[in-house]
């Protein structure tokens, strides 16, 4: 039995919805067991993540970061590389951005500062991905292992750098100084006051642009073609003249740069300073997003928004329902990934039967 037997609307809309529903059903059961009304809880969740403009704004804010980390993992995956290191690359990207800001934010206007921050973030993120990429290409060191190791190493290194060099004297907070106002990304509420006082900023549009560029380049460019050929059949790619090792290195550089760019939204869009562990797992969420979104730009976008919504909605819900801790939504994230990402064809047999039955 294959999904070829099914119309497109069924595979791309009905099945995912059924899966999402199943995940939410299990989640509802857990909420019920925790002693709360699942229906009401879901209403609150949806309301505060999607319906309420301010909530939506937060959802999209989180999604903007996730799009970048999701893209980072996706592009590496296209080349058959499983980059688990987006977390460390984003963390390091934050350092690049911060270095740029600390040196420039007093002297440059915003329209130069923002690109400078982005360049810094991309550069450092790329740098952190370069070594695993190089080792994979030239020494055959397993990228999964090296990137896991590089996450740990990044954590140590950043801990050291922040504490030793970035904390302003006399401060308690394990964070750099706050950047000047010129270094803040323009928030969207300036144009859409309904969004309220939220950090949603132009990096949302940058994320969309990144998605479009990714989509176009991966599926319509010669480079993307070589990228995918490398991912699917290295021998054939070699036959086609792809320089496999530079392809691996370049892909990891881009992947790292994208992960690094994830820091731009988190830092220049919201906190305006670099703090210890500011990534808060966004790099790992990127893995889930890439897998769930099938490395497709639309899929990545939807998954990123879904995860953003869970963070925002879950947070609000836990405020209203103290019996439901925020961690419940980590569990629900896991469920959604399981149902939508790993068991995507759970209902395919039943659905095929249903469709065929109707026709007959």
């Amino acid at each position: 039995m294959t999904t070829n037997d099914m119309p497109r609307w069924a595979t791309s809309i009905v099945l995912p919805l059924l899966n999402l529903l199943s995940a939410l059903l299990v989640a509802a059961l857990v909420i019920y067991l925790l002693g709360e009304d699942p229906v009401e809880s879901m209403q609150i969740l949806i309301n505060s993540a999607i319906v309420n403009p301010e909530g939506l704004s937060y959802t999209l804010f989180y999604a903007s970061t996730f799009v970048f980390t999701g893209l980072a993992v996706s592009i590496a995956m296209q080349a058959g590389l499983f980059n688990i290191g987006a977390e460390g690359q984003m963390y390091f990207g934050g350092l690049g951005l911060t270095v740029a800001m600390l040196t420039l934010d007093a002297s440059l206007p915003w329209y130069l500062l923002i690109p400078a921050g982005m360049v810094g973030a991309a550069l450092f993120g790329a740098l952190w991905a370069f070594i695993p990429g190089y080792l994979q290409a030239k020494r055959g060191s397993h990228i999964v292992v090296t990137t896991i190791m590089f996450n740990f190493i990044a954590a140590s290194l950043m801990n050291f750098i922040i504490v030793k060099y970035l904390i302003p004297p006399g401060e308690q907070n394990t964070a750099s100084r706050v950047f000047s106002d010129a270094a803040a990304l323009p928030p969207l509420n300036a144009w859409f006051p309904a969004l309220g006082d939220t950090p949603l900023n132009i990096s949302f549009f940058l994320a969309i642009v990144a998605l479009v560029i990714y989509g176009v380049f991966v599926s319509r460019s010669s480079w993307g073609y070589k990228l995918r050929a490398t991912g699917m059949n290295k021998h054939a790619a070699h036959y086609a003249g792809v320089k496999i090792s530079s392809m691996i290195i370049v892909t990891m550089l881009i992947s790292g740069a994208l992960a690094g760019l994830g820091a731009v939204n988190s830092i220049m869009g919201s906190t305006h300073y670099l703090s210890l562990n500011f990534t808060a797992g966004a790099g790992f969420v990127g893995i889930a997003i890439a897998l769930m979104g099938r490395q497709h730009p639309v899929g990545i976008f939807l998954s990123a928004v879904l995860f953003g919504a869970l963070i925002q909605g879950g947070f609000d819900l836990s405020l209203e329902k103290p019996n439901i801790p925020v961690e419940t939504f980590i569990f629900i994230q896991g469920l959604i990934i399981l149902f939508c990402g790993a068991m995507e064809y759970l209902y395919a047999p039943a659905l095929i039967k249903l469709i065929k039955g109707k026709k007959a």
Partner: protein
Amino acid sequence: AAPKLAIVYDAGGKFDKSFNQSAFEGASRFKKETNINFIEVQASSDTQAEQVLRGLARKKMDLIASIGFAQTQAVQKVAKEFPNVRFVLIDGVAQGANVNSITFKEEEGSYLVGVAAAMASKSKKLGFIGGIDIPLIRTFACGYAQGAKATDKKAEIVQNMVGTTAAAWNDPAKGGELARSQFERGVDVVFAVAGGSGMGTLQMAKEKGKLAIGVDSNQNHLYPGTMLTSMVKRVDNAVYDSFTQVKNGTWKAGITAKGLKEGGVDWALDANNRKLITPEIEKKVLGARKDIIDGKTKVIDIRSGAACPV
């Protein structure tokens, strides 16, 4: 009407076996005594802290207690936007006419337990186990070392940190392993400042029959017999007092650093460790305590930029 009170924990959460938990205990005490309720929220990231503070401020809270230095910038920012809402920031300093920043002189309390440790130790090798290598933890370590060295010049401090990510506060196995390794190197008193990871340390001490020192709240009751003492940091009192002040209308903004004198930090002596604290130790510690309160002994706070003198 009863004041509207709120408490915002940082990423550690209200059961972090550290300052968040202590804050929760203070607030609970207040609630029990006055029957006035409070709202609790946990902010898992700096962005969320700002979101939460703003949300609470909009609800026209009378006082919002922000726990942990991670909320410093968020408090400063939101306090400016809502001049009519009062804020208390624990462990950090934020500017604002409506903010009361309360910090603690952890170095002073640590000094005392350092004294006790140096007295109780036979090997004169003292252990320190911190969560992450950050200024706050270094302050504890340095105060501890100062107290120990002042008591016994030859005292040697072995120091380990659990890790570098948030997991470092939740790794009791590593906390225990570090303690064991320190014991094997001759350490016989260990001071654990590592949140949940510290639980592993205290337990290992119990197992190995060595002495341990707890932190933040009085942890003496956990393993009576091997808990030498605890360095208590009265975040609970700070929260309790702030709530009470708001209720009584005596709340004031400002910057307060609470040391021994102000009752912000102390060592813990109770039935659980009475047997371990010999009269000599007690005398020595109380003497040091008095000297600090009187200003005769100055304990260096490394956060002020000074290097640790020992």
